[in-house]
Structure formats: C-alpha cells, structure tokens
C-alpha cells in the first residue's frame, strides 16, 4: 500500500491550517497605544462666583487673577510615594525623587502630552492642550506635571521668561486688607545657593517638575485626560502680614518677591505659592474622562 496520499496530505494540510497565523489569529502584544485629547481647568473654591476662600492663617482671599502655564504632562505606572517624611527610613535614606530630578528608572512613562497650555485657574471650564497626547493602555498610578520653558528654549536654561503662575487679588483679615500681585518664574532664583561641585538633589530642570501626583485609571481609547488645579492650595499657609515690608506699586499693591537679594528676602507668601505649586497631593487632580 502506498502511503503517498497520506504523506501528500501531511505536506499540504498544515499549510492551510497554519496560514491562520498570518491571517491575524495571532495574539497581540498587549497595551494598545493611542492618541488622546487632554485638557486642564481650575478646581476648588477659587472657581466659585467671587473666587473667594479662606486659608489656614485666617485670611480671606479674593483672587482677581490666577493664570497658570504648565506642560508637558506625563503619566507613570509607578505607585505614588506615601507621606513618609517622618519615617526613620526616610530620615536616613534620601527620598528617591522628592523634589529633585528623580530617577527615570523609578517607574515607567506610559502617557504624555507634549505641549504647553496657559489657562485661567479661576475658571472650571477646561482648556484643551494644543496638541493631543499619546498613551498606552496600562494602569496609570501617578502623573507628572512639568513647568518647562516655552518651546524652543532648552529645558536647563536658567534665565527664562515663562511665567508658571500669575496671581493677583486681595486678602483681608480682621479689618486688614492687603492687595497683592505676584509671578512665579522657575529660574535660578530658586536654586541660587547651588554651586558647581556641590551635591544636591535640585537641578534647574528638577524644580520645574512635579512628580508623583497620585491618580489611578486605566485609559481606554476614546477617552481624554483631564487635569484640574486647585489654586487655593497654593495659599493654604500664606500670611499676608509678612508683606508689610514688601515692595509696592503706586496704588499700594504689594508685589510678591521671589528673588533673594541683599536688600530683599523672598516673602512668605511667595514661598507658600512655590511649595503649593510643587505639592503632589491636594493641588492637582488627574482623571480619565469620557469623550
């Protein structure tokens, strides 16, 4: 008996069956990547009708202006750091990326919005980022909000013009009223005490990043990234009485000072604004919303 028909079948049938491999029945590699829109807006009491709120120092603050320029924004799979500043471990071991540059290998970026946007933090109407972002379909656990210079300016340029925060308003307490205005520019005013050769965990690019903002979502195609900024958190501990000796405009408006000099210290309100801008919990919320 010749086995030829059987053997011919063995030669040919597998071709038909395994063509399925190329026909798309192969499994994927996981974590689809897609483009998505992103937008940012204000949140919290500052977005109410009169933009008025109280802070921990008893001041009632009415904001007339609160513009923020931020971007790019990144999404990370790494868990946020717990607030462990009082732990014995952290006392001995410097946090991996508290305020400085951080470790790129601490986590993995799975989403990014590579554009910059200026928006009114007193409005809860979201403003879209000028360019869509890219995201891969993985669980996002933290966000990074960068306050980089405008496009075309190198990230480590120390003298920049980009205003990260521009605020103006009136603070009142027990009959005292202080009109104020101020701008935060993330330049070398904030790391003026750093000199070459000194070890430090703050670099000029480091202070322009807020890393480890907690969030939790699994992005799906068709959704969009929504970032909210509660500007009231920036004034949480501001004591406007410290502006007594601050420079003033002709109309008596106190000018917030960020640059330390021999004749003028950085004021406490400005320091609070800077700390609030870099606060990972409270100031920012990042969610994945429906289209």
């Amino acid at each position, binding site marked *: 008996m*010749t*086995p*030829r028909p059987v*053997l011919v079948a*063995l*030669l*040919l049938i*597998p*071709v038909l*069956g*395994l*063509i399925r*491999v*190329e026909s798309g029945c*192969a*499994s*994927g*590699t*996981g*974590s*689809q*990547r897609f483009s998505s829109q992103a937008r940012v807006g204000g949140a919290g009491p500052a977005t109410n009708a009169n933009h008025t709120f109280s802070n921990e120092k008893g001041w009632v603050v009415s904001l007339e202006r609160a513009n923020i320029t931020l*971007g*790019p924004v*990144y999404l990370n799979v790494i868990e946020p750091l717990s607030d462990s500043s009082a732990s014995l471990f952290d006392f*001995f071991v*410097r946090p991996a990326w508290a305020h*400085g*540059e*951080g*470790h*790129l*290998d601490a986590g993995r*970026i*799975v*989403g*990014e919005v*590579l*554009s*910059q946007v200026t928006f009114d933090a007193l409005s809860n109407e979201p403003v879209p980022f000028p360019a869509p972002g*890219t*995201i*891969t*379909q993985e669980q996002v656990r933290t966000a990074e909000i*960068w306050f*980089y210079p405008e*496009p*075309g300016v190198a*990230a*480590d340029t120390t003298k920049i013009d980009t205003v990260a925060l521009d605020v103006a308003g009136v603070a009142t307490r027990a009959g005292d009223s202080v009109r104020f205005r101020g701008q935060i520019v993330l330049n070398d005013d904030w790391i003026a005490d*750093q000199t*070459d*050769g*000194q*070890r*430090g*965990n703050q*670099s000029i*690019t*480091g202070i322009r990043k807020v890393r480890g903002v907690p969030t939790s979502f699994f992005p799906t195609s068709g959704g969009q990234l929504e970032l909210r900024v509660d500007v009231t958190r920036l004034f949480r501990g501001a004591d406007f009485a410290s502006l007594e000796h601050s420079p003033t405009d002709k109309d008596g408006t106190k000018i917030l000072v960020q640059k330390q000099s021999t004749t003028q210290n950085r004021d406490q309100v400005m320091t609070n604004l800077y700390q609030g801008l870099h606060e990972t919990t409270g100031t920012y919320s990042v969610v994945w919303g429906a289209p």
Partner: protein
Amino acid sequence: MHGPRRFALFCLSAPLLGIALLPALAAAQVPEQSATGVIPPQVEQRQDPEYPRGEPSMKSVDVELLVTIDRHGDVTDVAVAESGGQLFDEAAAQAVRTWKFAPARRAGVPVASRIRLPIHFAPSAPALAVPDPVPTLPTPGATPVARVESNASSHQTGAPQLAPEPAREILVRGHSSLPSRGASDYDVNIGRLAQVPHGDAASLLRLAPGVLLTNEGGVGHPYQIFLRGFDAREGQDIEFTVDGVPLNEVGNPHGNGLADTHFIIPELVQHLRVVEGPFAPQQGNFAVAGSAAYDLGVPTPGFTAQLMAGSFNTKRLLLMWRPPASSDHTFGGAEVFSTDGYGQNRAAERATAMAGYETSLGQSASLRLLATTYAAHYGQAGVLRLDDVQAGRKGFYDTYDTTQGGDSTRHSLAATVDGRSGGMKLSQSMFLVLRDFRLRQNLTGFNQDPQQTWQSLHSQRGDLIDQQSGTLTLGGRGSARQKWKTLRQTQELELGYFGRYDRVDATQKRDRAGTTIPYRTDLDLASGLTNVGVYVDASLKPLSWITVRGGVRADFYHYQVTNRCALTTQNSFGGDPLDTECFSSDRVGYRSAEQTASTSASIFQPRVTLLLGSFQGFTVSVSHGRGSRSIDPQYINQDLKTPFAKVDASELGVLYQRAFRALDLSARSVFFQTQVDKDLFFNETEGRNTLADGTTRTGWAGNVRATGGFFDLAANLTLVKATFDDTHLAIPYAPGLVARVDGVIFGDLPLGLSGSFGSGVSYVGKRPLPYEEFSDTTFLVDIGASLRYRAISVGLISTNLLDRRYRLAEYNYASDFGSQDYPTLVPARHFAAGEPRAIYGTLTVLLDGQEAAP
C-alpha cells in the same frame, strides 16, 4: 559539448559569491536506503587519447589521472597523479576532459566523485577500457581506497589503452554528511544558486527555510537573525561553527552568544548545514533554534581574482586559489572591502585572509589546518524615530548620532585530524581564537542619564553605549564512530566530546554625546567560562525502513565572573566622593569595588529522531530534543543553580526526494514546537539582551528544491506563532511569516559564451511590535547575471531591484533625541532603514587547469 547546457567552472565567476561547489550531496539529507553503498560513475561517451605526434620514442607510457566528475556526469577537473611526460599528460587529459559519465550515485542520488584513471599509451596497442570499480563510502577528510577487480576489456582502436592492472581507486568527493536528523536537517547545496546575490556568508542561511536577516547596525555589525520565531539577535540562539570552530562569543557585552560571520569569505563556503532545532547530540551551546555549520573549501583548482565595484562607492577585491592536485581544503583566500554606505554614517571597511591546508597522514588519516585573520571598522546609523521622519525632521537614511560604529577583529588557528582505525572513524580537532569587539550605539538619545544624588549637577549627557570585549577562546572536540551490521542493516554508534574555555574582558560605558569620552560605567566584567560537552549518538536500523537516531548529550558549564564595578549606585550613608562610579562602601562600611561570583551546573539533553522510509521517495521524521544556552555572565550570582536556559523542541515532518531523468526534486513539510524556560530579549535602554521568562514557538516550515540541467529553483515558507508562556501575548519582533524564492537559469550561448541569470525574492509578513502594533511587510527582489568567455567573466548585480523604501528593523520603545519641543518618554516607533537599490559590476579572471594548459 555533451547533453544539456551546463558549466564546468562557470560558477566561480558568479558575481559576489562566485561559489562553484560540487554538489556532493542532494539538497536534503535522506536516510540511507537498504544500502548498496555508492555506485561508481560509468562512462557513457568517450574519445580515446591519441599518441602524441611529437613524441619520437614510440615507447609505452603510463599516465595516471585524477578525474573529477560532477553530479551531472561532466568532467570538471583533470589532474595528473602520475606523469608520463608532458606530451602524454596533455594528450590524456585533453581526451578525458571530453568524456561523459553517468554520475556516481549514493542511494540513488547523483553525487560528485573522483576516480583514478590509468592511461597506457602504446604505439600500436589497442583498447581503452573503463574501470568498473567498487565504491566505498567517504569519510570526512580521509581518502578511502578500495581495491577492485578490473573487468576492463580491450578492443582494437589503435589508441592508448588503460593499464590492465585491476587495482583502481575511487574517491567519492566532497562532503561526507553526518546522519540526517530528519526533515529540519538542511544540507544546503548552494550549487547554481550562488548566482543569486547573497553578499556574505550569513546570507547563505536564507537558503534554509524560515531565516530572516536584519541589521540595524550597518555593514560591519553582525546580522540579527530570526529563525523559527526566535529572535536570535546576533546569534544567541543558533550555534555557529566554521570547520568545527565555534563562532558564538560567550560573554559578549552586546549579546551573549553573538556570532559575527563577516570574517567568512562567502566564496570559500563550500557547504552549509543548517539543523533547525536541537536534535543532534553533536549540537552544543546556543543551539536553541538550531545550528549552522559552515565548511570551507574551493572545489576546483585554479586562481580567481575578482573586482567588484558599484553603488555607494563600494569596492571589493577578492583573490582565491587552490593548487592543482590538492584537496579542496587546501586553499588561500583574501578579501578587501570598503563602502561609503547608503546613508549617513554607514561607511565600512574590512579585510579578511583565510588559508587552509590538507594533507594525508599515512594511508588512512588526514590533517587539516585552517588559519583566518580579519579586521573591520564601520560606522553605524542606528535607528530613527518614525515621527521624526514623517515630520521631515530627519531623512529616511539619516542618523541621530555620528559617533555610532564599531570595530571587530578575529584571528584563529584550527587543526583537525581525521582517520580510520579498522572500522572506527576518528576525528580530533583543536582551535584557538583571539577576538576583539567594540560597538558604540545610541538607541535612546538623551533619557537614560538622570540626575543622581551622588553626582555633580548635570543635564542629560547622552545615551551612547560603548561596549567592548576582548576574548581568548581555546578548545577542542573529538569523536569516534563505529559501524557494524546487525539484522542485515548498518548500525552506528558515535561517542564524542567538546571542550571550550573562554577568557573574556567585557565593559560597557556611556559616552558623552558626540564624543567617545565615557562618563559612566555600566558594566566591567572579567570572566572565565568553561563548557564541556559529552555525547552518545546512535543510528539504529531494526528494519530497512526504520531508523532511530539520537542519544544524549551532557553539557557542563562553569563560570567565574569578577565584577570590577559591582556597586554602581550609592548604597551607603554618604561620604563617597562626588561622581563615584564604582562604590567601595555600603551601609555596613567599606567594601571592595570588586566582587567575584562563581557557579557551575550540568544538564542532560536527550535527543532522538525517528525516520520512516523512504517510501517511493517519501520519508517521515519525528524528532524531539533538549538544548541549552549558557547565560550572560552578568547574571551569574554565587552558586546560581541553573546558569543556562533550557529549550525543549519537537517536530513532525515529511520529506520527499526523487531524482528523475532531467530533474532532481526535493520537498519537505515540518511541524515544530520549541519551548524555552529563560528567553533573552533585546533591551533598548541597556543596549543588550536581558533575561525574560519562558516562551513557546509553534509553527510550520516548508521547502521545495528543483534542479535540472539548466535551472536551479528553491522556495521556502515558514509560519510561526511565538508567545510568552505566562501571558500568552505575542513575542515582539519575531516574524510570523517568512518566504523566500531563489532561482537560477544558466546555459551556453553563441560565440563561445556562457551565461546565467539568478533572482532572489523575499517576503516577510508583519511582525508584532509592543503595544499591539505591527511592523510593515517587506518585499525585496535581488537579481544577478553573468557572462563568461574563457577565463573572463563579467557580472551585474542589483539588490533591492524595485528600490523599495523599507524598514529593515522596527521597534517600539521610548527615546528622546531632542527632536521635539519637550522630552518624549512614551514608547514610539523606531526603525532601521533597509538598503535602497544598489547596482554592482564584477570582473572575474579565473585561471584553472584548462586555461593554464598551453
């Protein structure tokens, strides 16, 4: 001219390769039929030599010739073994060159052969009789001799006659094949397919099914090889040997198991055996996807000089020679090559010299020596981001970093003694290899240099990875094979060993952008690695149509690895100098920056193949085997239990082979599955392979080869599904479909010309990429044509004839080359550009015995 058109020595003038091999065996291994051994060649047409007219002495003279006959029955070489004087030698040789034979056959398959042919010149004697020798099976390197009874008869011709002495010798030339391991054992007979442009020795692998070659590193960078769903990178999953000398580099920082085949002059490749899967006990370390064994030699004596020039200012000078009356393993070859490359930063230069020598040691043994030397220096374009090219920020053939490139040197000596003692075939070889390697590549741009607390303030200094290694390899292998008859069948048993020691110095540093100034040490290892393998291989035939082949192999691996920079991150409470790279303190206190780890382990690897047939040309094979791959020294910890990856492979195949009157046909169909417990994948951020978890590949491979008097055609198709064992997600980068067709037509033309035309067509299906994406498909056509007149041949080659702009390699990972407004940190598509259409011309001068004769 006899029979169909064919060329005697023409293929030596084929562009680029110029390989002219004597196809000693058919394209596929087949199990020996109920053996009648070798049928010697039979004279079909002859012209008797004439007594030289210029010879006045009118004496009787004997001349003995060594006549080489190819598988088509043509005389391809005539050498004088015993001279009877110049005039008689020339008269005998001139006549015998016109003879036509029925070729020698082994198991029904035509094979090349060489016979000793005594010619007796007598002034008035008749009769020229043709010997009818008894065949013997060849042994590698040895010269079997069979004394036969001559039944030569004489008749009245007035012409010289053969000596009446009955003793004849017959040598069945060429490659003496190792036992077949089934349908995935490809004894690649290059033959006329040398006319199809291949370019280098690695490209010859494409004649076996399922092989895909890519190269993101340029002309001097080793190929990245895909086989049966394995991304073998630069050779980590394929065991490469050249005349038994291992190529895979243990501990290479770019990839453990890297095999650089650029030092091999492709025209010196006489034979290539590819076994897909770990099914032969002789296969050792790195034979995970399979093994590729190159045998070097020059099939015909003579002198070859070839000049090639063409696109991208490419130039190549090739010189080869083989002395007359020598074996094909006695040769010299040298090559100098340079090119500007097909885009930015792709220039390359290399030079190779190879020499072989083979001589008999007494009656039953031979000694073969091989020496090689090689050096190369090349630029490397690396990869580009697809979004940069699409936005016009970069051209398709541009580069981000012109400091990328590499250097490579390799120097080796090897000696092999083959012999017979009684019925036992013996082989012993030793080798010494000195190798230096350097590679600079930047795959991620500027995102792998974060500010660390123990560093001076800095911005991203660049991700240029600078890998270097220096290796000394010393080793040997040996075997003893015995045959005997039982149940009226031939049974065989082989015992063998392999030993290898590697001393490797490997470093990886990061260089500042645009310079070769290191700013950080990633890796600094000094390793001593020993591998000893022993095996038993049996070939048992209980019946004529049942063959069981296989046995067991045991491999022992020993590592001693000194990490000269064991601690690269600050793990102390401070006090280290700023910018320390290799820390000498931790939380306990002071420690040496160096640390040594050692371990050893062994693995037993059963391998078996069942062959059923042949049934009217059909043979069924079932194989199962276990293989291993030593792991990278950087992963060695003290007393690590299993310093190797283990692979289990199985396959079921059918092979068909038949020699018709004007056509030799072979076809095969193979199911396969391979599982690896610790796989290796390229990590773009580290610039080298890193360990991953278990993976499985399942697929099918098919192959057809048809050879006739004026054509040679081969077609391959491989389908494979490769997945991770835990997630069952597809393995990125491994192609699911690879197809290749090679074809050549050749023949004689008017005016004494002869010509050939060859074409190779490749198709690679979409490859899975990370993030649920797929690469583009690839479709390429290469052609080659040549014309020969006497000793001169001119040729024309075009690769990528359709001038397709294609992505040779594609990846998805994060990089930042500063080409956008802000750092991009999300994985993006990257690619290495494939070569555009190239055209080369060749001029070859071939002087062989015919041309040399006045």
